[in-house]
């Protein structure tokens, strides 16, 4: 009979935490994509399809960009990071309500749920963005002018998405209807986030207004990182970092406040 009981390995606090995250990321992957053999392909194919579709539409309708910037790559590299941001935000916002059964395991903390989702979403989208960048380099010769800045702004975008998404997830615990606002919010955010819009092309007043949005700063930074001197960019990374700090501290506090209000008895 089964007398050989598996023993738990002794783990430190950090490795236990990483173990929980690892378990959650794999679970999330399996739930979303693991139902069929080609399922994991969707992990990359989903953002890829949208990215290509949107870029294609712009490619067909656009009247051209300054300094011979290729239209397709320009829009693809504008859309894919925004897709990542939106994905992280919306998936995080639903993290608590959609994972209640997991909270039966005491080691799963609320923040683990959102962190796991952010990690998976960021990893999947980074693959797509990486493919676009490498493709642009190999086939068009357009390598990023500042690769380091590109990566940093991508990470910043993810951290803003994580902060806002986590904050929303906690708010939904207090005020359920907030859940309905998440989707419209992410769509309406698009014109204000300067994902496609070069801030050099708008009036100074509009530009200043848009630059209050940290996401607009991130997208400008990303354009600067990719296209270098071919574009004129306006952004401030310290400003973005300040937002990231504020959003994530607020999000952590909100999660702490939300936990005692959750009950499995439903």
């Amino acid at each position, binding site marked *: 009979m*089964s007398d050989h*009981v598996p*023993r738990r390995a002794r783990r430190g606090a950090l490795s236990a935490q990483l173990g929980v995250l690892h378990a959650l990321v794999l679970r999330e992957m399996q739930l979303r994509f693991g139902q069929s053999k080609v399922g994991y392909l969707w992990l990359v194919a989903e953002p890829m399809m949208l990215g290509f579709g949107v870029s294609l539409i712009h490619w067909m309708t656009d009247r051209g960009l300054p300094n011979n910037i290729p239209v397709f790559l320009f829009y693809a590299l504008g859309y894919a990071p925004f897709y990542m941001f939106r994905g992280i935000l919306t998936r995080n916002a639903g993290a608590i309500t959609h994972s209640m059964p*997991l909270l039966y*395991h*005491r080691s799963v903390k609320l923040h683990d749920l959102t962190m796991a989702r952010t990690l998976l979403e960021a990893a999947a989208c980074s693959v797509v963005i990486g493919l676009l960048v490498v493709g642009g380099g190999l086939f068009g010769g357009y390598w990023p002018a500042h690769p380091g800045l590109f990566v940093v702004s991508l990470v910043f975008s993810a951290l803003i998405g994580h902060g806002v998404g986590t904050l929303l997830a906690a708010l939904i615990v207090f005020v359920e209807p907030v859940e309905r606002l998440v989707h419209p919010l992410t769509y309406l955010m698009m014109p204000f986030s300067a994902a496609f819009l070069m801030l050099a092309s708008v009036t100074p007043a509009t530009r200043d207004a848009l630059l209050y949005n940290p996401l607009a700063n991130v997208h400008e930074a990303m354009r600067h990182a990719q296209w270098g001197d071919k574009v004129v960019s306006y952004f401030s990374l310290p400003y973005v970092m300040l937002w990231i700090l504020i959003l994530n501290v607020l999000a952590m506090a909100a999660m702490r406040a939300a936990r005692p209000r959750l*009950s*499995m008895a439903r």
Partner: protein
Amino acid sequence: MIEMLDVWKGFHSHKSGAQHVILRGVHGRIRRGDQVGILGRNGSGKSTLLRLLSGVENPDRGVIRREMSISWPIGGAYGLQTITSGASNARFIARLYGTPVQQTQDFVEEFSELGRYFFEPVNTYSSGMVSRLLMGLSFAVDFDCYLVDEALSTGDARFAAKCQHMLQMRRQNAAMILVSHNAMHVRQYCDTAAILRNGMLEFYEDVDEAIAAYQGL
């Protein structure tokens, strides 16, 4: 040891917003190796008590001290991902609690005797099969205390014997708290018993005495 000191818990009614108090000052102490049955009618707060003991919810008032590693409440489909297979749940539990992944999956597969269903989604299982999976999953982790919420009540005699053997084997280290509305299950698995009524817990040294008192309710 687990100690409960003056534990209170209530819930807000979703409709009226009024507070329903479920537990009104529960006291108790469970030591290593104890096998305690808690008897209570439907709605008396048994599952609420287990959630508090497991630490997934906090009491409104009072203290719960835990000096043992405690399982999650074993019952219903608690803590399961029902759209994935039993095997995948086993791997998840292994990663979460830090047991070796393959060994854990093999243990659960053997213990729960689900056959080919082990690799089918849990939402296709019968309730007896879900219970067997849950018991396998929890026994696959070397907890000091198992919280069982009716999960033992759906299995057949053979499975009951298997669970009893497993609990016997861990007698030196592991405690079990079993909540049930069924006196027979408490008699079968436990050596002390308590009754949960009016939001309070009354302990009895003798199981038969507890059952007699419970049936007199």
